[in-house]
């Protein structure tokens, strides 16, 4: 018994199976985590190696190069780049997307183990570091305070950070930029000299006095008592009274030679939010955590936590990714709802029957819900990709049910009983339904095999659409005939009333349309060559549209975030930098009311911080993060505002360099602007530096580029203490002693820890600030030697000014300099051409090369992948169709629609002003599977008419007339379901806009052409069929 026969005969089993599937699907939906994108871990591993005291050049030769030479052999390695800076070597190994990083890290560890012995002594053990999407902060809060500022860190730590850390799914909550308490012992070197005490001695005294030690046990009588010394400072005031020596019989206290301050540490980084001093609280999620749920929880407990804070401490949200996710998900859910409504209207319009409409609509939830089961079972999340896959699929899932039900209805109208009509009606179209589904699967399944970044994005899309469409076919072959046999009755004539007027009107309109199409077709078949040439002309004409439709990689999204980085003159102090930062804040807040929160940090993070090694750091750098009102509430996009900000920044004279990143640089994938990267490789640092400068100059002058930057830092001015070894030996000193002495006086000596309420604070001894401000101060430093004599620093060495070598970057074992720029309103291909031309004009010595990277590289790879996919899909669809028709000719005729689908895409993109990008290209690939469906329905029916003995032209016209309605219906349901997507309503959905636009354009245009061109071409090929038939008859004649 065939599947539809079983279904019709066992209605209860059938309905319960589907009910079961729906229940399981809803159950899965309840447990599905919500996220913005599918989890994507960038395939990168970083190796840090610290080598204290080595310069960038030393690091390059002694650490980076040996590491590179050996790590180069790791499997699947795509790119190996490195940066050598003072003290640290940073290697980044980039792998192919989708490679197994665990295996890769194991390989890397093996290699490191092998070569560790060959690295110089004193090199620290290399540290491996793996990126993951869960490291991207999901929320950032800012805390501002006035009077409570000095204690802010402690307050936040107790009141906010710890409670937030307890929320399930929160990976880490960290605090940055808050003030740190420090007990400073600021020494007056002249007084110290006068009393013959050194800084080191002071440190020793402080350390010795700050001691708690158990002294053992004391047996008194029959009891045992512990005995201990409690010397630790109870309060910071004690320090000042500390006796540090005696001079001429008088005791010298610490307060005699230094001032003790219980204060906050000197801030190397100035954090402000909306201009107020404060700190940032960064919340990261655990891998696999549900961002939306965590954010919800945080937002729920935050008001409660705020109540325990002092009144001047204000907590504000800088950004909350979950808001964007939630809005995007909501707008996509609305999209799906609208699509459903459109489908209902179309079906009702064409069929005019409520019961039929209900049966068809029922396939939508049944098939869509199955995708939740898939997502749940494979451990995926509900995200933009999966939801938009659903809205793409929604117009297609009803197609099969429409075809089946239409046929069953016509059987019922002929007088068959609903039960028999259901079985025979399904049998007749069953094969065609399966075939159209197979063509769709032939398109979407290969999407799961796309490599690279786009592959990760489209894997879910491919799987979901394939699954949903297959399930919809199963439903169309079981649920639809079953329900039809139970619910459909022969249509009684409509009673008079408003409904009758409406549906009779629609009927008349549709019949008129049928008649019009029939006469058009009759005319077209008579003038077949004219039709053919006009069609070819249209297609060729559309190719000329292509240059006018720009090409870009990824459509930009508006996530309401702008980041900016401003560089002032190298070496500028924090105090000056802060002034400029306040100025920028003020300008931005005044000019752009859209900016809700502006959070600024100036200066550098603590040295030795691993994150600090990743980015440029320095007291002259200001970075700004701005949160804008949501995209729907403002008129200017982040890109427009970003542009105006660039103009503002270029007017401030003290700014040397700046970049504005609308959308943020690292936040969401593809949300930032596309970048062009010119990589200049060559060994000579001076030559490549000069070329990079020239390149940057030309690129700045190019109209399509913004934010030109050179990756290599400008040379730093630094003072080096050049020591004379002979003189040092004479005075009983050595380099170590001198260097340490210098560090203790300038940077400070952490003498001990002051404990209070379970927290520890550093006690730092150093020269008072006024004695750390000139070269004379340094040269005047007195260093104690082994005999206890004090030697002046100027005796053993001199201070000299140097330009320190810049950091050295390498890629694939070659020294490189990168000049990056972001693209603005220009076609990537044009810019690349201009850049290449500019490089050719330069004076380039032998051994220096140039390469283009950045998004361009990725774009070319992805585009090549997609074009290959397109080819594969076309071949697959041809194979599927050829096997269905058992003919080479019929699928060829059907495939003639494809060029016009692309014509429609170009035309629609041109009209709407969108570009040809990754998303619209994927839309075009999908079109291959969607547009051939119409052709299949049409050609199949013409073949049928021919087999039934109709003359060629007549068969074409009769088939065309009878298939017009199903073709229009399936086309309209698919196209109208895309409209909400194409309109791009709501946040985040604009990413999918080009896809919706290209599918609608391609589908509509190709359907119009299909309806006329395919019958015409069929008649052209039909002559061949007649000839062969004649030959067959002749042969038969001879044989009998």
């Amino acid at each position: 018994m065939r599947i539809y026969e079983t279904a019709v005969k066992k209605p209860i089993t059938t309905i319960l199976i589907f009910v079961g599937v729906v229940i399981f699907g809803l159950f899965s939906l309840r447990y599905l985590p919500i996220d913005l994108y599918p989890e994507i871990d960038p395939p990168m591993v970083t190796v840090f190696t610290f080598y204290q005291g080595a310069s960038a050049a030393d690091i390059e030769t002694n650490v980076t190069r040996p590491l590179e030479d050996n790590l180069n052999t790791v499997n699947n390695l795509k790119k190996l780049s490195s940066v050598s800076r003072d003290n640290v070597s940073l290697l980044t190994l980039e792998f192919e997307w989708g490679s197994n990083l665990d295996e890769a890290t194991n390989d890397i560890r093996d290699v490191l183990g092998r070569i560790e012995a060959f690295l110089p002594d004193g090199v620290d053990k290399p540290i491996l570091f793996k990126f993951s999407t869960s490291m991207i902060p999901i929320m950032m809060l800012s805390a501002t305070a006035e009077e409570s500022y000095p204690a802010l860190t402690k307050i936040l730590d107790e009141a906010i950070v710890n409670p937030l850390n307890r929320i399930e799914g929160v990976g880490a909550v960290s605090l940055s930029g808050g003030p740190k308490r420090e007990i400073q012992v600021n020494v007056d070197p002249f007084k110290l000299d006068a009393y013959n005490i050194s800084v080191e001695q002071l440190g020793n005294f402080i350390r010795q006095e700050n001691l708690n030690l158990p002294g053992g046990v004391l047996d008194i009588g029959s009891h045992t008592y512990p005995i201990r010394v409690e010397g630790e400072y109870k309060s910071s005031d004690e320090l000042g009274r500390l006796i540090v020596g005696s001079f001429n019989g008088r005791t010298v206290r610490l307060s005699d030679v230094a001032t003790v301050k219980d204060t906050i540490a000197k801030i190397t980084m100035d954090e402000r939010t909306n201009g107020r001093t404060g700190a940032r609280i960064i919340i990261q999620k655990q891998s696999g955590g549900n961002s939306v749920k965590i954010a919800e929880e945080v937002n729920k407990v935050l008001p409660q936590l705020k109540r325990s804070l002092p009144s001047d401490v204000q907590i504000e949200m800088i950004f909350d990714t979950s808001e964007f996710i939630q809005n995007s998900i909501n707008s996509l859910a609305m999209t799906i709802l609208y699509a459903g409504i459109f489908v209902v209207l179309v079906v009702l319009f064409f069929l005019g029957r409520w019961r039929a409409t209900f049966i068809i609509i029922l396939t939508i939830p049944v098939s869509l819900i199955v995708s939740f089961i898939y997502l749940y079972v494979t451990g995926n999340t509900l995200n933009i990709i999966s939801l938009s896959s659903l809205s793409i699929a929604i117009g297609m899932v009803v197609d099969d049910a429409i075809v089946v039900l239409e046929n069953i209805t016509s059987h019922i109208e002929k007088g068959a009983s609903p039960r028999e009509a259901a079985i025979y009606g399904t049998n007749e179209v069953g094969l065609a339904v399966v075939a159209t589904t197979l063509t769709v699967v032939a398109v979407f399944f290969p999407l799961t095999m796309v490599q690279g970044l786009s592959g990760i994005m489209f894997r879910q899309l491919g799987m979901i659409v394939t699954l949903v469409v297959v399930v919809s076919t199963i439903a169309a072959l079981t649920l639809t005939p079953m329900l039809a046999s139970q619910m459909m009755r022969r249509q009684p004539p409509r009673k008079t009333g408003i409904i009758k007027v409406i549906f009779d009107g629609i009927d008349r309109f549709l019949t008129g349309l049928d008649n019009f199409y029939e006469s058009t077709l009759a005319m077209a078949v008579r003038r077949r060559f004219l039709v053919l040439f006009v069609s070819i002309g249209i297609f060729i004409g559309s190719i000329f549209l292509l240059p006018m439709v720009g090409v870009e990689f990824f459509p930009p999204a508006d996530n309401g975030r702008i980041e900016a980085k401003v560089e002032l003159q190298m070496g500028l102090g924090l105090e000056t930098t802060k002034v400029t930062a306040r100025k920028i804040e003020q300008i931005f807040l005044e000019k752009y009311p859209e900016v809700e929160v502006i959070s600024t940090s100036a200066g550098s993070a603590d040295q030795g911080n691993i994150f600090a090694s990743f980015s440029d750091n320095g007291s002259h750098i200001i970075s700004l993060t701005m949160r804008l009102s949501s995209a729907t509430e403002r008129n200017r996009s982040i890109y427009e505002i970003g542009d105006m900000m660039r103009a503002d920044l270029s007017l401030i004279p003290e700014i040397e360099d700046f970049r504005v990143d609308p959308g943020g640089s690292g936040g969401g994938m593809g949300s930032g602007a596309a970048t062009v990267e010119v990589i200049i490789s060559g060994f000579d640092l001076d030559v490549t530096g000069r070329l990079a400068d020239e390149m940057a100059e030309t690129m700045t002058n190019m109209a399509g580029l913004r934010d030109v930057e050179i990756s290599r830092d400008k040379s730093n001015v630094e003072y080096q203490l050049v020591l004379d070894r002979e003189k040092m030996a004479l005075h009983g000193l050595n380099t170590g002693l001198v260097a340490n002495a210098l560090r203790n006086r300038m940077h400070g000596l952490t003498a001990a820890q002051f404990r209070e309420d379970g927290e520890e604070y550093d006690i730092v001894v150093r020269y008072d600030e006024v004695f750390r401000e000139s070269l004379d101060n340094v040269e005047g430093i007195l260093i104690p030697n082994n005999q206890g004599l004090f030697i002046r620093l100027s005796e053993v060495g001199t201070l000299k000014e140097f330009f320190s070598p810049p950091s050295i970057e390498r890629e694939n074992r070659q020294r490189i300099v990168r000049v990056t720029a972001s693209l603005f309103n220009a076609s990537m291909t044009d810019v690349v051409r201009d850049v290449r031309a500019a490089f050719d004009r330069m004076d380039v010595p032998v051994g220096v090369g140039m390469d283009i990277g950045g998004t361009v590289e990725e774009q070319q790879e992805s585009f090549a992948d997609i074009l290959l996919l397109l080819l594969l899909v076309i071949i697959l669809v041809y194979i599927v169709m050829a096997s269905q028709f058992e003919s080479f000719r019929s699928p060829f005729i059907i495939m003639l629609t494809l060029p016009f689908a692309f014509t429609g895409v170009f035309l629609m993109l041109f009209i709407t002003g969108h570009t040809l990008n990754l998303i619209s290209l994927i839309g075009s690939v999908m079109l291959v599977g969607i547009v051939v469906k119409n052709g299949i329905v049409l050609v199949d029916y013409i073949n049928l008419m021919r087999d039934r003995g109709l003359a060629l032209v007549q068969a074409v016209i009769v088939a065309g007339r009878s298939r017009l309605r199903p073709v229009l219906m399936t086309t309209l349901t698919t196209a109208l379901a895309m409209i909400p997507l194409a309109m791009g309503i709501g946040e985040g959905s604009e990413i999918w806009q080009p896809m919706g636009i290209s599918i609608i354009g391609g589908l509509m245009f190709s359907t119009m052409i299909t309806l006329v061109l395919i019958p015409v071409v069929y008649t052209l090929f039909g002559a061949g069929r007649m000839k062969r038939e004649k030959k067959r008859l002749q042969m038969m004649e001879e044989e009998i």
Partner: protein
Amino acid sequence: MKAVFIAYNQALTEKIEFILDRMSIRGFTRWNQVQGRGSHTGEPHMGTHTWPAMNETILTIVPDEKVNELMDKLRHLDSKTEMQGLRAYVWSVEDAI
């Protein structure tokens, strides 16, 4: 009106159908995939591993004047491919609706 019963190897299907078409005989009833064997010579057509061939039969009711021509044509076809097996029998039709 005569009834003509034709039993033949299914390999001949196309040719038999062509003959009927040529003679404008529209109506027939056909059984396909039937088993059978000849009374004297020829291989049995049993659809088994031993005798894999299968027969097909047609029962067609034709006007008296067409019977001879049909039988001639069938005889001719049989003579060309004797090993395939083709038999036809004619009898009278007494009544019809």
